[in-house]
C-alpha cells in the first residue's frame, strides 16, 4: 500500500477502494463534476510536508528569532499583561475534553463546558459586581465596540463618546467597527466625559485608564444617566479585586480584556472579552449566555439560554453576529480565579500596584525624570524624560529592557506633546528588573546622548 500524504488520514488503499465502490465511482474526481472544469485541480505551489520532528524543529527555529518577554526585564503591559500562570491552569483547561469540544449545541453531552462557563459568568459577576456576564467576546477591543453598539440599540442614538485615555487598541477597534452602522465616535479627554454626555448613546470611560491613572467613574455615570445615556466602563480584572468595581459605581455595561486571568499573551491572542451588564439590559446583550435549569428527572443542569438574541435564530435581527467565541479562554479564567481565590487575586493585584509605586518613586528621584500621570495611578504609570519616550524606549531596547512608548496612544495629533514611556508592573516584576531599569534610565539621563534622541 502507498503511504498517506496526510499523516492523520486513517484510510488504507483497500479502504478507499471499498468506499469508492460503495459510492459507485472509480475515483474522487468523478464526484467533482459540479466544479467548473477550467478551475478544477489547480497546483497550489505549497511546500511538501514534513515529519513531526522536522516541523517541531522548524517552529523552534522560528521561535528562536523572537526575544521572549521573559528573556529580560519586561515592563510592557496595558490591556495585555505578563502574569504568573499556575501549573494547574493549562493542565486542566487543555484537557482534550474541553480543548476539542465545540459549542455546546447538545447540552446532554456538554455539561462540562456549560457548567464551567456558568461558573465563569458567576465569578466575573462577583468580581465586577455586575448582574449578568456573558460567556465571552473575542477580546477587550471587540467587547468595547459591541458595548457601544448595544448602547446604540438600547437608546436609539448614534453618537458614542469615548475617553482619550481609553486604551488605543480599543479606540481603534471601536472606530473601525463604527464605520459599518455609521455610529459617530467622539473622543474627548476623560476629564471632559461628564460634560460631553448630551445626546450620546453611551459614554465610555476606562478605569484605571490606559496610562494607569485612577479615574473617578461616578460623576461620569451620573452625567450619562442624566443625559439619558448609558455608562460603559472599561476595566481590568486584577484591578477590580482592589478597586471599587463597576457595579457600585453606577456603570451599565462593564467590559475588559480577560487575558491577565491565566491566559498566555501569545502575541495578542487568543484572549477573552469580558462583557457584563445590568439585568434590565440582558436581552440587548451580544453573545452566548449559559443558564441553569433541570432535566426531566429534576437534576440540575445547564444550557445555552436567551438564544433568541443570537444570529443562528434571529439572523439579521440578532444583537450581534458573534458565533464562535472564546469559551476555552473563559474556562481558563475561571480556573485561574478558582485557584487563586480572593486572597490570591488580591495578592497578585497588590504586587503589581506596590511594585509600580516603588518603581515610580525610584525613577522620579533621577534628575530629569518625572512621573507624568494626571493623578494617582494603579499598577502602571508614565515616565517623562528629557530624551523623550520614543528615544528612551529604543535606547532601553538596545540594553535588553522592553518598555512601551506612549506614541501609539495618540491619534491624529491629539494630545501631542506627550512623548513618554509606560511602565507596567505585575507580580512577575522582580527587584532585579527594577534595578536594571533604574540603572539604565539613570545612565541614559546622565549621558544626555543627543544621538539617542533621534
Amino acid at each position: 500500500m502507498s503511504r498517506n500524504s496526510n499523516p492523520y488520514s486513517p484510510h488504507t488503499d483497500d479502504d478507499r477502494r471499498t468506499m469508492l465502490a460503495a459510492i459507485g465511482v472509480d475515483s474522487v474526481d468523478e464526484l467533482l463534476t459540479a466544479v467548473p472544469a477550467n478551475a478544477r485541480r489547480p497546483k497550489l505551489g505549497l511546500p511538501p510536508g514534513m515529519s513531526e520532528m522536522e516541523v517541531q524543529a522548524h517552529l523552534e527555529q522560528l521561535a528562536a528569532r523572537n526575544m521572549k518577554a521573559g528573556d529580560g526585564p519586561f515592563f510592557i503591559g496595558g490591556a495585555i499583561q505578563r502574569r504568573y500562570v499556575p501549573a494547574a491552569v493549562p493542565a486542566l483547561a487543555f484537557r482534550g475534553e474541553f480543548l476539542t469540544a465545540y459549542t455546546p449545541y447538545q447540552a446532554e453531552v456538554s455539561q462540562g463546558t456549560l457548567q464551567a462557563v456558568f461558573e465563569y459568568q458567576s465569578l466575573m459577576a462577583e468580581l465586577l459586581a455586575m448582574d449578568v456576564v456573558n460567556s465571552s467576546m473575542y477580546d477587550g477591543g471587540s467587547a468595547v465596540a459591541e458595548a457601544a453598539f448595544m448602547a446604540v440599540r438600547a437608546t436609539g442614538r448614534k453618537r458614542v463618546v469615548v475617553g482619550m485615555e481609553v486604551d488605543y487598541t480599543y479606540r481603534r477597534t471601536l472606530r473601525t467597527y463604527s464605520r459599518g452602522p455609521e455610529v459617530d465616535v467622539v473622543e474627548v479627554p476623560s476629564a471632559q466625559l461628564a460634560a460631553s454626555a448630551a445626546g450620546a448613546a453611551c459614554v465610555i470611560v476606562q478605569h484605571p485608564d490606559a496610562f494607569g491613572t485612577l479615574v473617578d467613574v461616578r460623576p461620569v455615570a451620573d452625567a450619562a444617566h442624566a443625559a439619558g445615556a448609558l455608562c460603559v466602563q472599561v476595566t481590568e480584572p486584577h484591578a477590580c479585586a482592589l478597586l471599587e468595581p463597576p457595579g457600585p459605581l453606577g456603570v451599565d455595561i462593564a467590559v475588559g480584556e480577560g487575558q491577565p486571568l491565566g491566559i498566555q499573551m501569545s502575541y495578542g491572542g487568543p484572549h477573552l472579552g469580558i462583557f457584563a451588564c445590568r439585568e434590565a439590559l440582558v436581552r440587548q446583550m451580544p453573545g452566548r449566555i449559559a443558564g441553569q435549569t433541570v432535566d426531566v428527572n429534576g437534576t440540575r443542569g445547564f444550557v445555552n439560554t436567551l438564544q433568541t438574541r443570537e444570529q443562528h435564530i434571529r439572523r439579521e435581527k440578532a444583537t450581534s453576529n458573534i458565533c464562535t467565541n472564546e469559551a476555552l479562554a473563559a474556562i481558563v479564567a475561571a480556573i485561574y480565579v478558582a485557584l487563586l481565590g480572593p486572597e490570591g487575586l488580591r495578592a497578585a493585584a497588590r504586587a503589581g500596584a506596590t511594585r509600580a509605586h516603588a518603581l515610580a518613586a525610584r525613577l522620579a528621584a533621577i534628575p530629569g525624570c518625572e512621573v507624568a500621570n494626571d493623578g494617582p495611578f494603579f499598577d502602571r504609570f508614565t515616565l517623562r524624560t528629557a530624551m523623550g519616550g520614543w528615544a528612551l524606549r529604543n535606547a532601553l531596547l538596545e540594553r535588553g529592557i522592553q518598555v512601551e512608548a506612549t506614541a501609539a496612544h495618540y491619534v491624529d495629533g491629539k494630545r501631542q506633546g506627550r512623548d513618554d514611556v509606560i511602565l507596567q508592573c505585575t507580580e512577575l516584576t522582580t527587584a532585579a528588573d527594577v534595578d536594571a531599569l533604574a540603572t539604565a534610565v539613570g545612565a541614559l539621563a546622565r549621558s544626555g546622548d543627543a544621538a539617542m534622541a533621534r
Partner: protein
Amino acid sequence: MPESGAKTPEPALEPLLVELAQPGRYGRHVRSNDAADIPEAFVRQAPLRLPELTEPQVVRHYTHLSQLNYSVDTGMYPLGSCTMKYNPKVNDRAAALFADLHPRQSYRTTQGVLALAYELEQMLAKITGMNFVSLQPQAGAQSEFTALLVFKAYHAKRGEAAQRRRIIVPDSAHGTNPASAAMCGYEVTTVKSDARGNVDLDALKGALGHDVAGFMLTNPNTLGLFEERVSEVCDAVHAVGGLVYGDGANMNALLGVTRPGDLGFDCIHINVHKTFSTPHGAGGPGAGPLCVKAHLRPFLPKPWIVKEADGSYHYDTAREDREPAGLGDSIGTIKQRLGNFGVLVRAYTYMRTLGEEGLVETSNDAILAANYLLARLRGRYQVAYDRTPMHEFVLTAAPQKRKGASALDIAKGLIDEGFHPSSVYFPLIVPEAMMIEPTETEPKETLDAFADALLRIADRVDTDAASLHDAPVTAPIRRLDEVSAARKPVLRWQRPA
C-alpha cells in the same frame, strides 16, 4: 453549609465551585505581603465573595467537569459545517513556543512571529487563489464583518457609498451572514434556493441592482453541495457593480480541488479552526483570516507585514507602533496586529506538516468519507437535495417525523449510540434537517459504526418511535428544560439575599 449559602435543591452531576468552598482554603500560587497604596476613595467596598478552594479540589472539579463532555478526542463528532477533524497535538506544542510574547513588542524582537505570519499569509493566498490576506479577524463572523467594512470602503472610494445599501444572502446561508450585514449597517435581501439546492439564479438576478453592495455565498453551500453555476452567479453580481463574499466555512472540501479566486469570488474568509485543524475549544477560540483579490487590498485592516530583500520583516506603518495620521484607504484596525496568533501558529504547523500533497489528500478523503456515509444511509433516510455532495450532506427526517420521531429525537438517539449528534435544524430551508460532516480523520470502521447506529435508529423509528422521546438515557444528564431556562433565567449562582 457552603460559604455563600448557595443551596442545591436538586441532585447535581458536580457541585458548583461555590458549593465546594470553605473560607480560609486557598493555595499559594501568588504571594504578596505588600500593602498597596490606593487612595481611600477608590478602594473596593463591595464584598469579594469568590470561592476559597485548595488546588486538589479545583483539579478534581475541572477533571470531573471535563468528563461530562463529548469531544473529538473521545469520539466521532460529525457536526455539519463545523469540520470536527482531529486536532494534532504537535500544533499545541508549537503554539506554546510563542506564548511569552506581547503584541506591543518591537518588530525587532519578534522576527520569528512576523516570518511565520508572512509565510502563512502566502500559503492562504495560494490555497484560495487570492492575492492578499489579513490575519486580524478572530473568527469567521468577525471576518465577515471585516469584509463588509472593506466592501463599504471600496464602494465609498468609487463614490457609491450612499447608493449601495443592500447585501444579498441565500436562504441557505449561515445566520452569521445576515447578522454581519445588518451589523455593518446594510439592508439584507434573502434569495431562495432552486430545486437542485443552488442559489436560484433568476431570483438572484431579480434581486440585483445598482443598490447592491455585495453577495455572500458559501461554497460548497450549507447543503454540502457545490454551486453548479457559481461563475454565472459571480458574473451577475459583478455586472451590477457588486462584490462577492465567500464564506469559507466549507473550505475543507476545496483544498486543491478548486480555488475560490478562480471561480469569481472577490474575497473569502478561512475558519482555521475548521479547515486547518485548530481545536474548537468548547466554542472558541478560532481565527478567521480574510483573503482578498488585489482590488480590495487597499481597504484591508492595518498594519501590514512587509518583507525586505534581506529577509527581515517589519510593519508598514511609519513608526511601528503609531497609527499614521491617515490610514490611507484602510478600514482601520479590527484587532491589534495579528489577531489570534496562538491559533494561527497551530494552523501554520498543520499546513507545514501536511504540505501540498497532504492538504489535497485531506479534501479528497473528506469528500470520500461524506459520499461513502451517504451511500450507506441513502434508502433509509431521505436526502434533502439528492445530488453528489462534497464534504458533508443534509438529510431530512421529515419522513421519520411523520412516524413520530423528529430530527432532535434522532440526534438524542445518536448520543445513546455513543456518538455526538450531527447538526440539526440547519440549514433552515430543510425541514427536520440533519447535517452530517464526517471529516477525513474518521477511519472507515468508525464511519461504518456511525452508519449502523443511524440505521438502527431508523429501525427504532419504524417499530417504536416514541422510545426515542426519552433519549438520551446514557448521557450524564437527561433532556433539559430549556423553556424555563429562558423564561426565568438563572445566569449566575445564587446567593442568599
